[in-house]
């Protein structure tokens, strides 16, 4: 049974799609192979990944002129379709948010959908306003 801290940031989430010209197995491996992770995701000194359910990862990530440590644990490992892990950093104020990577391979290409939950957003807001952040931004401008 996976546990999630739904209250950490409210019940919203980011959703970002991408399509890659590579098979799903290769895309999946790029997320869990320490050498690959170090070359595209976390280019800091220390990278520790233990890709099994309950296993932990630790990534050092340079971002905006500083090194940010990120860590979490794997919730779902269903290669090459779903990878789900908790995500904790200074940005989440030390609370668990949840990142899910869903992969779908069609004709050698892979559709990736990244969702980051525990962040603000909701489908209904998206439907009405074309995006949670756009909604808030337009409000912020009017105030």
């Amino acid at each position: 049974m996976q546990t999630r801290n739904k209250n950490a940031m409210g019940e919203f989430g980011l959703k970002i799609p991408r399509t890659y010209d590579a098979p799903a197995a290769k895309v999946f491996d790029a997320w869990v192979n320490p050498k690959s992770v170090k070359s595209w995701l976390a280019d800091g000194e220390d990278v520790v990944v233990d890709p099994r359910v309950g296993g932990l990862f630790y990534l050092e990530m340079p971002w905006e002129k500083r090194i940010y440590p990120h860590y979490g644990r794997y919730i779902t490992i269903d290669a090459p379709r779903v990878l789900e892990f908790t995500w904790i950093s200074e940005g989440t104020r030390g609370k668990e948010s949840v990142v899910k990577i869903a992969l779908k391979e069609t004709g050698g290409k892979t559709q990736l959908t990244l969702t980051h939950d525990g962040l603000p957003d909701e489908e209904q807001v998206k439907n009405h306003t074309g995006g949670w952040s756009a909604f808030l931004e337009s409000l912020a401008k009017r105030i």
Partner: protein
Amino acid sequence: MNALDNAFAALADPTRRKIIAKLARGSARVTDLAAPFDMSLNAISKHVKVLERAGLVHRRRHGREHVLTLHGAPMRDVVTWLSRYERFWNIKLDALGEFLKSTN
């Protein structure tokens, strides 16, 4: 809970977002706010209290009337936080694309 957590929690509810949207058009009394909703004045008051606690709404008393005004600063924090993560993942997913190309 810190200020940003409070703002996120307050904005997580659709009724409260509608209240915010209405107040964005100008200050209003609690009774004015309740009118478009199929809800009791009491229920609306509870939502307004959550928004007040999050610092999103300020209340002024004019005799017996309570006038509510929107306060935007906590929302700007939410926007900043969200857009930062959106940018972060977009950059990282682009880097993944470059990585996959380089290892073809």
